[in-house]
């Protein structure tokens, strides 16, 4: 698809410029307030590396889990004819409107030691989930997966279903149609959804600190470290935020070139 290079209409230009200012100025505020002289001191604290590593690992695991479960769910929502789809869609997007702290309490009620499933896990296998890195991944997945599901569902709806019909008439089974036609067709949508999901998981705070708690090395992700630093040393909190921002921006830009770049016109 070739696209004609078009100038931006003035009625779009002004609000778009305002939007950029609104979104970017707070970041500039952070950069301006950064104590550059103390930067090396803050960055070389071992706790920073530990929290950053935990954040990246758990957000990536949460995204993988969301892909594994969320893409099939998006297919069900977009393509299947099961009854109550509208209700199902509303239900799976609940984590979007639920205050994350409440989400964390809800996870306790299901997966906690006294929870519906958690009690059984504890009694049968001696397995407790809260206050572990697994709990961090679960909390992040709970909050972030709806972003992926909605993106992929939108992509599936926009994709031309006739390709799938043709594949079927050529003798492809449903599973191989999904694998070899549908998936490549919506790959950009899946990639965009995965990026959204990863970004949301990386910034997750409320559900994580409630369900997984806060312990360095096990459950203290960067947003938790930032919040606690804010209680004692706002400058350290700004530095930590910047590190998180820089790493996530770099990752997103890199992915955009490598991964999205090929399939989406840029």
């Amino acid at each position, binding site marked *: 698809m070739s696209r004609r290079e078009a100038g931006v209409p003035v009625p779009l230009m002004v609000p778009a410029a305002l939007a950029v200012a609104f979104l970017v100025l707070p970041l500039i505020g952070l950069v301006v307030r950064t104590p550059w002289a103390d930067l090396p001191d803050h960055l070389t604290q071992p706790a920073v590396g530990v929290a950053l590593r935990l954040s990246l690992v758990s957000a990536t695991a949460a995204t993988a889990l969301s892909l594994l479960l969320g893409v099939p769910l998006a297919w069900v929502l977009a393509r299947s004819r099961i009854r109550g789809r509208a209700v199902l869609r509303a239900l799976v997007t609940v984590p979007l409107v639920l*205050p*994350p*702290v409440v989400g964390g*309490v809800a996870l*306790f*009620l299901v997966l*906690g*030691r*006294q929870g519906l499933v958690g009690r059984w896990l504890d009694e049968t296998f001696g397995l*407790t989930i*809260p*206050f572990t890195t697994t709990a961090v991944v679960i909390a992040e997945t709970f909050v972030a997966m709806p972003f992926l599901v909605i993106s992929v569902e939108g992509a599936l709806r926009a994709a031309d279903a006739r390709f799938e019909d043709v594949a079927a008439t050529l003798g492809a089974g449903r599973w191989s149609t999904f694998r070899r036609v549908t998936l490549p067709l919506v790959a950009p949508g899946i990639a965009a959804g995965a990026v959204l999901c990863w970004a949301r998981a990386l910034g997750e*705070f*409320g559900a994580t*600190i*409630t369900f*997984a*708690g*806060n*312990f*360095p090395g096990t*459950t*203290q992700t960067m*947003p*938790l470290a*930032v*919040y*606690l*630093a*804010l*209680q*004692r040393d*706002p400058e350290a909190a700004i530095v930590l935020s910047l590190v998180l921002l820089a790493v996530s921006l770099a990752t997103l830009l890199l992915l955009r070139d490598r991964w999205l770049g090929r399939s989406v016109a840029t």
Partner: protein
Amino acid sequence: MPRRAPLVLSVAAALVLTACGGPADEAGGAAGTTSGTGGHPTGTLTVFAAASLTDVFTDLGDRLEEDNPGLDVQFSFAGSAALATQITQGAPADVFASANQAQMTVVTDAGLADGDPVVFTSNVLQIAVPAGNPAGVTGLADFAREDLALAVCAPEVPCGAAAEDVFAAAGVTPRPDTLEEDVRAALTKVELGEVDAALVYTTDVTAAGHAVEGLDFPEAEDGVNDYPIAPLADAPNPAAAAAFVELVRSEEGQEALADAGFRAP
């Protein structure tokens, strides 16, 4: 209670309050200046107070409103650190009551307190366990047990600083599963039965009711948290601010604090 973005949000909320409450506050301040000794303060009084003071201060605010027709008392309850930040960023408060000296110092160092802050009460730690104490916790030494799920406040927040003091005094090296961001979050985990014990303030145990039991321990005396209060230099309603501080320090105020589990300064 959300946070992170929350600090930003509460600052934003404070700004909105400034915008809406400005004229009323000015009216209150103007009216307030007319009340000398024996006069009744009127207008709006805005008190920023540590979250642990929620129940007692709301009650005292009601009493002050009853005694002073025309006075409207507004509260903002939050973590002391968040409140101190809001005050230094220009939030229009009349009185600040902090759960520790450190956060009051943030305000006094910025030159925003009117006179020297006064310690009006104090709080000590208690071991909170779920009703029935299922894990059989008996004292501070149990916080070293690896087989228990344990919550302690993070050292960055007041209850965590107090916890460090009592553990040091007891010679116990705690093995907590989580370092909580505030005392109420620690208490919630006890209420849900997700931890076997947490170190929280006596007043939080009192407020939690039947779901939580409190155990006293001797080393608590080494982690007493003092609560300072001060009227603010830029108070829109200084007369009402003075009246509120006076009420908190009066016999009546001290009784209300004692009922909630606080102790005399």
